[in-house]
Structure formats: C-alpha cells, structure tokens
C-alpha cells in the first residue's frame, strides 16, 4: 500500500503536495536535508535558526511570566490593570510578540481555580512562558483538561475541594491566557524578585499553585 503522510482530506483546496512514497525517515535526517536544501535556495539563513533556538533556550521562558506575576502581587495598580487589560499592562515590560500579542490574565482565588489548555493544537503564551512543555502539546492533556479538569489537577498533585470553581480556558483563538496564581502565605517579607522565583511555569498554566511545594504549605 502506498504510504503517504497526508490523510487526503476531502476539502477541495488541499491535494497533498507530498511526493513521499516510503515510510518517513528519521526526523533528524529529514530536518537536515530540509535545512540544507533551503539554505542552498536562500530560503533560510542557518544563523537565523541559531538565533531562534538561542532565544527560546536562553532568553524567552517562564521567568518573564513570573516577573508579571510577582509585579502583580506587589503592585495593586499593576494587578488591576493586568486583569482589565493584560496586553496593555504587559506591553510596558516588553514581553509581547510572537504567540503573545493579545493576552488575557485570569486570577486564581481561594474560590476559583483557572486552567489553560488548547484542545485543537497547542496555543500557548510563548512570549511569557517560552515554548510549551511536551505534555501540554500531547493528546492526554488536550483530551482530558476540558472533560475531567479535576482528575488532571489531581494527577499534577493538586486536589481541589468541591467548593472551588474550576474554570478551564480552551485557547481556540489568538488570545493567549496566563494564570495569575495566588500569592502563597508567609511571603510578606519577600521582594518582587524573590517572589518571582516562587512562580513556576506550571502555576501560570494552572496545573499547580505558586511556591506551594517549596513553602511546605498544605
């Protein structure tokens, strides 16, 4: 049986352009072949790829989101603006950009817990959290977060009481969601920078609480 990567959708405008008739080879080899082909044709600059990789390996990551959260914890005006107009509030920090143009921040409280997912693909606020972890992009999380959020949270070690309202946000458009976690108790003496160190990526997706484990809180 001829092997194709494409599912031959019936939508009239997409005839798979793929010419492969064999099982796809190792993606490392395919990537290498594509990069050298594109370089030869002047369609990509390998140094630009280096710069892109470096940006997400070293510069753009959850520390950005943590700064936003810590600022909101210490500055009630900033927090008010963040919840009203997150895009405008975050613009002042210079974090807007690719996969983070239009931000919505949702606040966790003792009564409300927010959880972010993208059931259809893997939308995620890159500009604030960097590239998403593998589990966020994989089928188990995408399938279950909307139908069984409490089961998912329990799997991440977060058992919520029945009195808590769980709000799931399925990122179907270009809005990107960031959870503003609750500030942990006993952190009144910490500076903004120290607070930022308590804020994890998972807390800003909504599958964990901020600083909870490190603080040894219940």
């Amino acid at each position, binding site marked *: 049986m001829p092997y194709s990567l494409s599912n031959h959708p*019936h939508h009239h405008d997409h005839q798979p352009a793929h010419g492969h008739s064999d099982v796809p080879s190792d993606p490392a080899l395919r990537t290498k072949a594509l990069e050298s082909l594109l370089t030869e044709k002047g369609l990509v600059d390998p140094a630009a790829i280096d710069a892109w990789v470096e940006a997400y390996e070293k510069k753009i990551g959850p520390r950005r989101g943590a700064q936003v959260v810590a600022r909101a914890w210490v500055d009630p005006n900033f927090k008010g603006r963040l919840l009203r107009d997150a895009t405008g509030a975050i613009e002042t920090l210079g974090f807007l950009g690719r996969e983070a143009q239009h931000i919505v921040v949702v606040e966790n409280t003792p009564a409300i817990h927010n959880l972010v997912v993208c059931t259809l693909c893997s939308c995620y606020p890159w500009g604030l959290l960097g590239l998403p972890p593998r589990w966020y992009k994989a089928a188990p999380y995408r399938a279950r977060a909307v*139908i*069984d959020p409490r*089961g998912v949270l329990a799997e991440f070690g977060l058992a919520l009481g029945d009195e808590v309202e769980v709000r799931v946000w399925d990122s179907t458009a270009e809005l990107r969601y960031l959870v503003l976690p609750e500030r942990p108790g006993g952190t009144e003496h910490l500076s903004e920078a120290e607070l930022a160190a308590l804020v994890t990526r998972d807390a800003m997706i909504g599958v964990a609480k901020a600083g909870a484990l490190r603080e040894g809180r219940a």
Partner: protein
Amino acid sequence: MSQHSHSHDDSVEMARHHHIHADLPPDPALRVKALESLLTDKGLVDPATIDAWVETYESRIGPRNGAKVVAKAWVDPDYKQRLLSDATTAIAELDLLGSQGQHMVALENTPGIHNLVVCTLCSCYPLPLLGLPPTWYKSAPYRSRAVLDPRGVLREFGLDLPEHVKIRVWDSTAEVRYLVLPERPAGTEHLNEAQLATLVTRNAMIGVAKVTA
C-alpha cells in the same frame, strides 16, 4: 463523576498490558503463530477447530445466503411481507440465522428511500447472511463518513442518488443486524429465483450499490 469509575482503572491497566507490543515483532504473522502454538500448548485451542472456523467462513457462509433471502422476497410477496415485518422469523424459515445475525431487521429500498448500513463503533455486520465483512466496511474511512456524508460515500461507490431520494443510514450499535432488501432490477421478470439470486451482490445488501440486471 463517572470519570473516576472502575473503568478508568481498566484503561490504565490495559495500557500497561499493551506495553508488551513494544517487545513483540511488528509482523502479525509471527505474533499470531506464536499465540496459536502457546494456546495449543495450554489446551486452550484445538488447531483443527481453527481450521473448521476458517472453512466455515471461507466456504459455507457468505453473501449467497443473503442473496437467497432477497431473491425469495422478490418472487414471493407473502415472504417479502414476512421479511419486512419480522426478518428474524422469515430468515429462520430458510435456516440462515446464526452468530452475529440472530436478531434481524430487513430494510426495503424503494425508488424514494435508500437504506445504508454501517457500524460506526466497531464492525457489526450480519455474518450468517453476508459472511465476513470486507476490509473497507471495518475501516475508519467508511465508519467515519457513512453517517456524516452518506451521499458522498455512495458517490464514491458509483451511486449518485437524486436529491429527492431519502437516505436512511442504520448505525448498528446493538445486536440487531440489518440487511438491505435492494430494488429488483427492471427487465428481470423472466428470471427464476435462483437466477435472480445470482444478481444480488454483497454491496447491494449493505446498501452501497443497486442490483443491476
């Protein structure tokens, strides 16, 4: 909620059992051979019984059974009436009931109504009347599209039905099995029951084709 019922554990436990496939050869021929000899070793199967089942479905049970029912309904109006009102009893008259076809419903195609049978959830099929289902009947393309786009599916089988014809898709979700009674083609008045039976195809009894003379 129900997400935490025992069946959740079921799927977790099963996922563990399925890890074995990483250590087994991909070629099913090798795996099935190993399974058969293991089952034989343990007295859980008699290879001669496997032969007998294969022979049953290869040679003794197939669409010729369904075609007999259809041809009889075409030539015998009383039988046709019985078939449409109680297919199980009418098919029992011909001694053609059996496993995966003990409770039958016959669906009559007319110039105004076209019936089509599918099993979206697995591959339920009237085995005693049609034999083993063809691969396409059991595969994702047919199972996914027959209920959503039956007209497109029928066109793919070369059957372009006019807009005014009502299409009824029957999704076999229970142990009821459906047999389509196709329209008798014109110009077959001179044929006897046995000759008519030779015209009736498996696809016509699933509902993806018409019978032609």
